[in-house]
């Protein structure tokens, strides 16, 4: 049977399209049910109080000026590179001036003791994270226990999540970070160039029943960590007795990090 080259190519192209569209149809039907890569998402959506929701409270009164124990602990635990050029920094938890973190809290005649203080900032592990919404490959997703996870194997490095994050919590590996990691923690992987990373609430430590490295390292006990859905957790107790603010709550992201004034 004689088939022209044109017809053969058309047939081949059409077959590829049909095969590809099958994948798309599968995806649309899968999207109708809760995705298996987001376990426990049903719990979060229903706001079920039986589900765990990890959260943190940072106490302004206890956080000591000039101390960076939490930052160092995070860096050493997670092989975070120390890159001298601020344009290409990688940071999971770091300090910023109070006026930059809460630009609309500041009033001209407000509390003067907070002016000029430095505030630790990190990923807020939002209840409704814009970064998760925009990721085209589900390389970042919200886990059932509230942690916004990163899968470095899936990330294509498009940096859409970085554009979407209203808090500037995410960092990109602009080049190979290994030469800048001193010392190397051999128990944990590093990351490679071309992927986005951020604080993960030390989920591998939580799996072993430990507290996050920053929380453990703080000598002043300024970082309080716990289950926000458990009324008796340390973080809920702290939130009951102190007035707390969040970063940019008007955006509807629902941060899990609170700042105790």
């Amino acid at each position, binding site marked *: 049977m004689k088939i022209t080259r044109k017809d053969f190519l058309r047939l081949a192209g059409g077959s590829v399209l049909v095969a590809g569209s099958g994948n798309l149809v599968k995806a649309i039907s899968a999207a109708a049910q809760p995705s*298996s*890569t987001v*376990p426990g998402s049903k719990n979060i959506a229903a706001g079920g109080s039986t589900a765990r929701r990890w959260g943190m409270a940072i106490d302004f009164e206890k956080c000591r000026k000039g101390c960076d124990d939490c930052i160092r602990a995070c860096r050493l635990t997670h092989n975070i590179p120390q890159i001298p050029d601020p344009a290409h920094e990688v940071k999971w938890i770091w300090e910023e001036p109070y006026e930059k973190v809460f630009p609309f809290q500041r009033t001209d005649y407000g509390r003067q003791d907070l002016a000029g203080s430095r505030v630790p900032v990190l990923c807020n592990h939002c209840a409704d994270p814009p970064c998760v919404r925009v990721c085209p490959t589900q390389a970042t*997703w919200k*886990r059932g226990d509230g942690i916004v*996870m990163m*899968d*470095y*194997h899936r990330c294509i490095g498009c940096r859409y999540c970085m554009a979407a994050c209203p808090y500037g919590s995410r960092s990109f590996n602009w080049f*190979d970070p290994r030469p800048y990691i*001193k*010392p*190397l923690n*051999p*128990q*944990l*992987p*590093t*990351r*490679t*160039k071309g992927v986005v990373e951020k604080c993960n609430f030390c989920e591998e430590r939580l*799996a072993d029943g430990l507290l996050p490295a920053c929380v453990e390292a703080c000598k002043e006990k300024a970082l309080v960590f716990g289950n926000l859905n458990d009324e008796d957790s340390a973080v809920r107790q702290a939130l009951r007795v102190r007035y707390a603010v969040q970063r940019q709550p008007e955006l509807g992201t629902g941060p899990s990090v609170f700042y105790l004034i």
Partner: protein
Amino acid sequence: MRDRLLIFSGLFLFVAGVTFPMWQGIAAKTSTKEPDLQLPANQTACVAPRSYMRAAHMQLLIDWREGAVREHRLRYNAYDGKSYKVSLTNTCLGQCHGSKEKFCDRCHSYVAVSAPYCWDCHQDASATAATTAAATAAGRTP
């Protein structure tokens, strides 16, 4: 047939070139030797039957990866009932196979398989330990 010389010399060169890998291997006496794997000293059973591991260890690793990272399945129950913590560096290398260079690379370079980019991120525990030991010996903080 004026071109007989040209044709046959070209043919000879072509056949020599195409069969180069074969007779170069014979000359170097590498192809008859099996890869010299260093098996784990303190383990007798593998996480899966040896034939499966030979054929599909990459599939196992990907299943481990997707399960551990995306579905929080941190332990693997092997066919013989033993439970292993899912970790390339700490379990595969640290608990059993020790050195990537003495185990993984031996087979991979023998069959000229380039290992995937796992090692851009995951660490070869023995290599890191060696670097740390060397650094400490030289009196520098690692």
